[in-house]
């Protein structure tokens, strides 16, 4: 297969190792999430190199990796701090590329940062495997040939929530949206609004709130007497923790409006958010990409090796980062080369199973993974400190699929 002996950026050549770059938030609001992602990456490298119990290498299908590294080269890695800022993330990624010679880099925790890194990947000709990023734009209008996303997106959250909301709350509802005033918030609001309006719900109002507002009281009080009976919080991270905590304090959950119990919905959940909001999340609906309580073999295998290594279960962010690393390594093995265009082609349209979320497709047209989505709610009666979210339903992949052209964008060329 030496036809691919072309020179490309950071070609590992005859060296015995190949370097991955893990670019996660180590400081700032998402530092804890970043730390969990880093753990997952380290675990993935271990497993690829044939150390430890092998993790998902035992369940993944089809599998080309042999547990001896990638194409016979041991994987080593470097880390960096994105600070959850686009500039810092790109600087850190450039360091990995220019100084450390990484062949692939990966990371996430915010859509803006992910998109910034993804476009850098295209410029530099290095594959970027997105970690946690939920905006439709990542594989929509800002998609890139060199970027791939395993995580689900706002559209899929909305599509998955629809039937559950209908079952739990009925068709006659008035929803009030509070939306973080930036691109992720907008796509989230749009997606969930499409879903709820599709159910026949009315939209009482959709209000933008400044990022990092801290105190949301001035946005919550208008909800009280707006006639709405559902509050949808299109917030993430600290904003969501604060707005939810305060909404509950304003007595929204004890309210009766239009003869119905007032409800709050949080489209995107994460474990850290659940921890930060404490008891306030009990019974509140939302979606996640993955949860450690899933019982399929892949999830069990991952929870086992992560839990034994670190003493606690992995978060959804850890899961997606782990899977992404394996998928990339596997694609190189499949392609028989590290030459990015070939690796990309191997990933495009790749269909696999046994990594949680059931049968999964890496769609070629937009580099978005399609798989089952979890609708969850805050656990009313947790049995342990990790038991925060209860899976209400595993919404099948077919229900969240959409047309690849829906969000526009262009992947760009293979060769740069």
């Amino acid at each position, binding site marked *: 297969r030496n036809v691919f002996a072309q020179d490309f950026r950071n070609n590992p050549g005859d060296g015995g190792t190949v370097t991955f770059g893990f670019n996660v938030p180590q400081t700032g609001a998402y530092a804890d999430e970043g730390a969990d992602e880093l753990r997952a990456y380290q675990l993935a490298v271990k497993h690829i190199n044939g150390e430890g119990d092998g993790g998902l290498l035992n369940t993944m299908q089809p599998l080309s990796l042999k547990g001896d590294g990638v194409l016979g080269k041991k994987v080593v890695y470097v880390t960096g701090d994105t600070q959850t800022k686009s500039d810092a993330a790109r600087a850190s990624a450039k360091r990995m590329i220019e100084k450390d010679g990484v062949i692939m880099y990966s990371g996430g925790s915010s859509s803006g940062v992910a998109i910034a890194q993804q476009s850098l990947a295209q410029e530099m000709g290095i594959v970027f495997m997105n970690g946690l990023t939920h905006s439709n734009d990542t594989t929509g209008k800002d998609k890139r040939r060199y970027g791939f996303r395993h995580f689900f997106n706002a559209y899929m959250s909305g599509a998955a929530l629809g039937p559950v909301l209908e079952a739990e709350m009925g068709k006659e509802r008035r929803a009030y949206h509070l939306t973080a005033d930036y691109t992720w918030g907008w796509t989230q609001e749009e997606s969930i609004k499409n879903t709820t309006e599709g159910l026949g719900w009315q939209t009482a109002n959709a209000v933008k709130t400044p990022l990092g507002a801290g105190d949301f*009281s*001035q946005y919550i009080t208008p909800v009280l007497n707006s006639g709405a009976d559902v509050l949808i919080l299109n917030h993430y991270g600290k904003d969501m923790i*604060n707005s939810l905590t305060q909404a509950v*304090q304003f*007595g929204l959950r004890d309210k009766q409006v239009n003869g119905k119990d007032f409800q709050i919905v949080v489209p995107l959940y994460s474990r850290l958010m659940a921890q930060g909001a404490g008891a306030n999340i009990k019974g509140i609906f939302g979606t996640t990409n993955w949860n450690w309580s899933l019982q399929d073999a892949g999830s069990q295998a991952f929870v086992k090796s992560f839990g034994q290594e670190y003493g606690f279960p992995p978060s959804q962010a850890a899961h997606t980062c782990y899977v992404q690393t394996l998928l990339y390594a596997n694609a190189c093995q499949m392609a028989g080369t590290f030459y990015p265009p070939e690796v990309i082609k191997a990933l495009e349209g790749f269909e696999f199973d046994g990594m949680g979320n059931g049968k999964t497709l890496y769609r070629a047209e937009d580099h978005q993974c399609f798989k089952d989505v979890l609708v969850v709610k805050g656990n009313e009666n947790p049995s342990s400190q990790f038991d925060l979210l209860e899976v209400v339903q595993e919404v099948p992949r077919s229900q969240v699929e959409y047309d690849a052209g829906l969000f526009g964008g262009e992947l760009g060329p293979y060769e740069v």
Partner: protein
Amino acid sequence: MDTFALQLLNGLDKGGAYALIALGLTLIFGTLGVVNFAHGALFMLGAFCAVTVQKILTISVKVKDESITFFEAYKEVPYLETWFGETGSVIIDYSVPISILVAIPVMLLIGLVMERGLIQRFYKRTHAEQILVTFGLAIVLQELVKANFGANPIPTPAPEAVAGSANIGEWLGLGSTVVYPWWRLIYLAFAGVVIAAVFSFLQFTTFGMVVRAGMQDRETVGLLGIDIQRRFSIVFGLAAVVAGLAGVMYTPILPPDYHMGMDFLVLSFVVVVVGGMGSLGGAVAAGFLLGILQSFASMNEVKSILPGIDQIIIYLVAVVILLVRPRGLLGRKGVMES
């Protein structure tokens, strides 16, 4: 009408919080002349007093969840509950009010140590150097908290009894649509009490005059037999306590994290300066003014006319006030003007 009443309440409540946070800063900044970028960190440390107290009160017996085999998962029952039953739960429930009692001596100590150990050397240095050292200190404190408590916010709920909302409308005869969380009302009252206490201490005793004089001219005050250094330490300790209390009281509204101080730092500087340097009354007035304007600017009716106004209102008001009134609302001439 009720939206208006509610936004007014929001404004007052925010104002109380802003004033309380800015009060400590104006003591240090406006009175001692030290640009204290670590003020936010003091606020944050106060909040983590509450977290620590809660952590201590909820030290738990851990009952292993046997269904999980890959790692250790527990159901936790606090010792206080196993020992004292109901009473124990109540104590835990009241951890935030209890933290206030703890925070006063702790923050006083922190303030004194900080002043004696560090700030003291910087009274005569340039503002630039004060900024650098206090910013460095703020980062260090922040990172220490992060290393111990993680980066994620930590829920610290208000006591059950005041967790819900009060039906203010009914009391005032405005109908039942005006409800407001108890804890926020308590915060407002608490802010009022603390502000009044600080005011009377500085206005009705000679302490305030001496400190003001000392800031203007340390040497001469020393010549008059006054140990100004000791008084500066006390002011600093007092400011730390006020900042800390503001932090403790804020925890049920905003689950604390290590970065919360930085988030409030700029705001508190704006409040202090808009109020006028060296003026306690100014800081309080500016706090309420900005709080109320911010609340009204966030109303949908206003936002539909001026999109994004709620994001910039505080800064816009600051600019207008500083251009109309050169020294802020109640500032004195010559303080920190060069």
